[in-house]
């Protein structure tokens, strides 16, 4: 290895011989993460377009107004398709497994939870009824929110639906509910309050009930029951949605095979019986429910343990029961009938068809006669559509058979369907950066072109030419329908491939590249010199590796990810205790060690406060009440203290900086950089004082202070960074390398600190102070270790334990500053310090600085302190730079290893219940953190490493 490296080192000149591994690491990481993300984080853009009634004129299909003489009156409110039903009752039973609905004779073995929803089976097997049970296939992620979104938009929601709603869950994409409201239908909603979150302004009336408490099996259901039956007598709605949650909650708490579950199912059976009875009794001619359809459906299934979210068969298989209360149309042509029939226990013949949930939005839109949602890629399901098919049979007074008329109509509806899907695919590909590949697009285009030409050249003419005989038209219609099926199936297949299936090959190749980068980093650390502390298995550097290993392995469990801050602090405190032991042995720096432990306690407090905040927004966390919050909310004195203390500490920080500059002989660029930081601190103070109610005087006019002061601070910081970057030109020749390094580091840190503190808000100075103390303790304690060997080590390299401590402390600071690895953990307010309006890049940069300021930017840029404060005999530039490069690679390695484990975990758990709630956000944060660490390392490498002119 060393021999291989030798020519390379010679060939690289100047500083590049030290820093090339960091740049190569950055490249490897970016490549690996790019590949993995392409495979894992499926993204879809939401389009801001909405379907309109008038759009239909652009389609090649026969729409209502020119539907010739077959239509009795064109003013019946029809839009894209002729309405088949006027009212619709949708009862959603959350987490309805397919085997709750289907008779047990469909399964190899009867289980206690089967055959409980008897009424659905009875009704669908009754002679002459137009009711049908469908086995419905949901698409993952099978969580209620994503499923409701999928059901109403007719699309395939992904984890990252890039759209206008940043944070709020409301659906802005075109959807079924929007179309209903747009076309004058009134929607009534009761049950799960997720609906009102998704559609805040759409409902005519709504009775939402909180879905938050999983242990509560009845509140939502009872609320539904209270309002459902009375509503059936009312006329002021067209679509009624009732969402029951009990089965989902019973599954989560007790599992499927449990008494509460069976009780719930029996309760539902009773309710459904009553609903069907009520509807039937009013379904006579002229009755309230003459043209009403009832749909009972699940949004997703669940496993026997009650889990859902992934793509397992039990989770995606759910049921749809649809019933029309008029006497049935004749059965649809057998080639479109996908049902399988079996005798159930009572000897009734029960038929079950199958459908995709994807098709739901399009089919319902077609039945009600409203435009299909713009982003729908579903196909109109022939069997579900046929349930409402009676209506148009009346218009045709010809001798054509009913199934024939149905086919004519269905072909036309499919034409509209295909045209709409094609329009969406075209617009999507044109407007989004990562659309479909050109191969796929041309395949879609060619299937569509084929179907369309067939339509234009033969079918359309035949349909318009009503005189043609039925024998001639039937095969043409069949061929036409098959072609549209083919097109829609192609689109659905490609869309699923793109939006629901992880690309394992890409993911694994990303992981492999990460492993290669780790091996490369290890070799790069070992290239120059052997590691320190290789003396024995119980040496302190072994502990560093053990801590790193524990932290990395903890990411394999969701519980440890949830409490990552506490885990990091636990390990940090452990390292602190070990340092204390060493300090006791050496009998020096006891104060520093104890101070470090006290600091761990402080971190512990603030992490707990952070967890309280998290508990308020996250459903995963249990309630913690922290005494800090209790106290501050209880007494005004504490509020006063809480406002004044940060300012005092900020003044203290400024004073420390001032003393530091006064004492040593700095060259002017560094000196002015640090001095202007003090100015920035004072400006922050001025910025904060108006916030402070208890001080109560206004120093600057409100309007100026709010925006201009932060901008001035950003400006000063930018200026400092420029000054510092070009400060290298005024190279000090008489200062030795270490001193130079310390001054440069200080200048760099002080250039960044005002921005970071300002964005962090009132807690900023506290955390800055804590990080100074922590950093100082780590530096000092490192020297204990150096002295432990008795001789100032001349050959030994940087101690991994200190680097590990440094990085653990940085991780702790991330959690101390009130962040956690979830998108609701981002402090969006920080993005608007100094700016009112939203500009994506600018606000993203501010948010990044706020999120990673204390945990990545400052620690990485401050890392040279570790090297510069080490006592050793060898003071040559070459040696110090080698150590610095080693320290940076080691720091990068510890980040890379933990990130790799987080990524491995995401890969293993990609079908886990909480993959979208927990693992994916963690993955995003870690990956961003890793890339930022690499970028700042590279930047630091350019800045800190000077040209080595000659070998000293």
């Amino acid at each position, binding site marked *: 290895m060393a021999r291989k490296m030798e020519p390379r080192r010679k060939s690289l000149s100047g500083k590049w011989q030290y820093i090339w591994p960091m740049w190569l690491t950055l490249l490897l990481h970016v490549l690996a993460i790019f590949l993995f993300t392409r495979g894992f984080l499926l993204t879809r853009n939401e389009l801001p377009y909405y379907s309109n009634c008038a759009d239909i004129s652009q389609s090649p299909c026969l729409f209502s107004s020119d539907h010739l003489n077959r239509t009795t009156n064109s003013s019946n409110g029809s839009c894209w398709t002729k309405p088949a039903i006027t009212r619709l009752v949708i009862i959603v039973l959350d987490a309805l497994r397919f085997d709750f609905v289907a008779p047990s004779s469909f399964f190899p073995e009867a289980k206690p939870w089967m055959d409980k929803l008897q009424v659905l089976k009875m009704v669908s097997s009754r002679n002459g009824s137009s009711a049908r049970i469908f086995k419905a296939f949901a698409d993952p992620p099978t969580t209620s929110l994503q499923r409701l979104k999928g059901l109403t938009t007719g699309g395939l929601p992904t984890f990252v639906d890039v759209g206008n709603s940043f944070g709020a869950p409301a659906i802005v994409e075109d959807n079924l509910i929007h179309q209903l409201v747009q076309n004058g239908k009134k929607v009534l909603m009761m049950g799960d309050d997720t609906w009102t979150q998704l559609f805040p302004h759409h409902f005519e009336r709504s009775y939402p009930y909180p879905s938050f408490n999983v242990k509560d099996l009845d509140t939502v259901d009872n609320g539904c029951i209270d309002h459902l039956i009375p509503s059936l007598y009312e006329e002021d709605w067209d679509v009624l949605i009732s969402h029951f949650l009990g089965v989902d909650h019973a599954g989560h708490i007790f599992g499927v095979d449990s008494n509460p579950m069976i009780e719930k199912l029996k309760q539902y059976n009773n309710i459904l019986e009553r609903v069907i009875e009520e509807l039937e009794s009013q379904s006579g001619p002229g009755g309230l429910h003459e043209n009403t359809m009832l749909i009972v459906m699940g949004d997703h299934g669940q496993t026997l343990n009650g889990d859902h979210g992934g793509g397992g068969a039990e989770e995606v298989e759910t049921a749809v029961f649809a019933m029309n209360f008029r006497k049935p149309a004749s059965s649809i042509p057998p080639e479109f009938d996908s049902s399988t029939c079996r005798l159930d226990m009572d000897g009734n013949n029960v038929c079950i068809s199958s459908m995709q949930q994807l098709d739901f939005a399009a089919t319902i839109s077609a039945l009600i006669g409203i435009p299909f949602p713009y982003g729908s890629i579903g196909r109109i399901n022939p069997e579900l559509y046929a349930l409402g098919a009676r209506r148009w049979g009346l218009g045709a007074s010809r001798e054509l058979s009913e199934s024939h008329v149905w086919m004519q109509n269905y072909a036309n509806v499919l034409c509209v369907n295909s045209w709409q899907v094609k329009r969406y695919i075209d617009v999507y590909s044109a407007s989004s950066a990562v659309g479909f590949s050109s191969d796929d697009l041309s395949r879609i285009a060619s299937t569509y072109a084929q179907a369309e030409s067939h339509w234009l050249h033969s079918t359309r003419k035949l349909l318009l030419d009503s005189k043609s005989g039925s024998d001639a038209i039937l095969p043409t219609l069949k061929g036409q329908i098959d072609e549209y099926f083919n097109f829609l199936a192609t689109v659905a297949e490609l869309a699923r491939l793109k939006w629901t299936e992880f690309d394992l090959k890409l993911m694994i190749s990303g992981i492999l590249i990460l492993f290669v980068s780790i091996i490369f980093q290890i070799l790069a650390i070992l290239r120059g010199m052997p590691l320190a502390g290789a003396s024995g298995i119980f040496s302190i550097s072994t502990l560093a590796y053990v801590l790193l290993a524990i932290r990395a392995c903890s990411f394999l469990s969701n*519980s440890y990810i949830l409490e990552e801050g506490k885990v990091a602090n636990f390990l940090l405190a452990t390292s602190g205790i070990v340092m204390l032991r060493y300090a006791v042995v050496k009998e020096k720096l006891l104060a520093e060690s104890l101070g470090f432990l006290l600091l761990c306690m402080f971190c*512990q407090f603030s992490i707990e406060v952070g967890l309280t905040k998290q508990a308020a927004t996250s459903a995963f966390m249990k309630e913690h009440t922290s005494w800090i919050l209790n106290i501050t909310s209880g007494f005004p004195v504490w509020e006063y203290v809480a406002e004044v203390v940060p300012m005092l500490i900020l003044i203290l920080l400024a004073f420390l900086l001032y003393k530091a500059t006064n004492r040593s002989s700095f060259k002017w660029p560094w000196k002015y950089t640090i001095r202007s930081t003090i100015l920035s601190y004072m400006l922050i103070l001025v910025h904060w004082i108006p916030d402070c109610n208890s001080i109560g005087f206004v120093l600057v006019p409100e309007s100026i202070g709010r925006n201009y002061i932060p901008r001035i601070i950003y400006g000063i910081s930018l200026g400092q960074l420029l000054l510092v970057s070009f400060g290298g030109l005024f190279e000090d020749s008489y200062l030795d390398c270490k001193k130079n390094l310390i001054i440069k580091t200080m200048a760099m840190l002080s250039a960044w600190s005002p921005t970071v503190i300002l964005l962090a808000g009132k807690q900023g100075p506290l955390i800055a102070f804590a990080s100074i103390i922590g950093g100082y303790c780590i530096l000092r304690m490192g020297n204990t270790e150096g002295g432990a060997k008795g001789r100032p080590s001349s050959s030994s390299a940087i101690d991994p334990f200190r680097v590990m401590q440094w990085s653990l402390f940085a991780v702790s600071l991330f959690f101390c500053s009130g962040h956690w690895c979830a998108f609701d953990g981002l402090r969006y307010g920080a993005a608007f310090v100094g700016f009112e309006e939203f500009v994506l890049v600018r606000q993203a940069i501010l948010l990044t600085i706020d999120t990673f300021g204390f945990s990545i930017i400052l620690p990485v840029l401050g890392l040279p302190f570790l090297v510069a404060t080490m006592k050793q005999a060898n003071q040559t530039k070459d040696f110090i730079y080698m150590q610095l490069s080693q320290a940076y690679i080691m720091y990068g390695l510890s980040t890379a290893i933990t990130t790799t484990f987080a990524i491995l975990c995401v890969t293993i758990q990609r079908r886990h219940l909480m993959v979208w709630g927990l693992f994916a956000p963690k993955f995003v944060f870690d990956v961003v953190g890793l890339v930022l660490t690499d970028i700042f390392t590279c930047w630091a490498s350019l800045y800190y490493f000077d040209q080595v002119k000659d070998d000293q």
Partner: protein
Amino acid sequence: MWKTTATKASAIDGSSSISTSEAFTVQLLCGFGLAFALWVAKNICSIHLVTDPSNTLLLIWIIELPIVILLYSRYRRNRKHCTYLRAVGRGFVALPVGAAINFLGAIALGAPVTIQYLPKTVNWSLMMSLFTTVPASSVLGSSWADWRRIFAQTKPNGSVEYLICLPAHGAIIGGWFGAWPMPLDWERPWQEWPISVSYGAITGYLVAMVLSLGFALAHNRSYLPKRD
């Protein structure tokens, strides 16, 4: 009775070394004390570490306290200047001091700081103090060098020091590992602070007691021929 054995022991051995059988007795009594405390908690007070950690820990340290102090004070250092009673007194003083150290350590490592956990944490630290500092203080007194040698360097010297050093380390390391299952979402009652940590500490303590017996035995073996 205690006094006579103590003088007999010191007559045989000037330094703080004890015979194997005595070491065995000491450890057995400590172990029995622990078992007795748990038995009392379960059968007489009908409480359990899981159901009422605070009172159970209280019971454990109150029952174990006289046993540990009385036993270990017999092997005090520097017999000439230090009476048995003084060693006992040292043990009692060490109890709150050690508890304070353990308390701070637990908080630093992440023990909850809410008021409702305070009695549990206090009782837990008193128990830990009994495992760690009380025997050491009875035997060593305030000799900083000895404390440092045993707790910071882990270099026990002589069989008594093995009996002090190893169980103390065992209790702390056991408690450290005992904290591991706490964040897991198994929703078991024993995952609460300080139950699993107490279990870990007690387990570590007992295991290390057995180990320390082995070390003391080995030490005595190598020491005996020289004495002859």
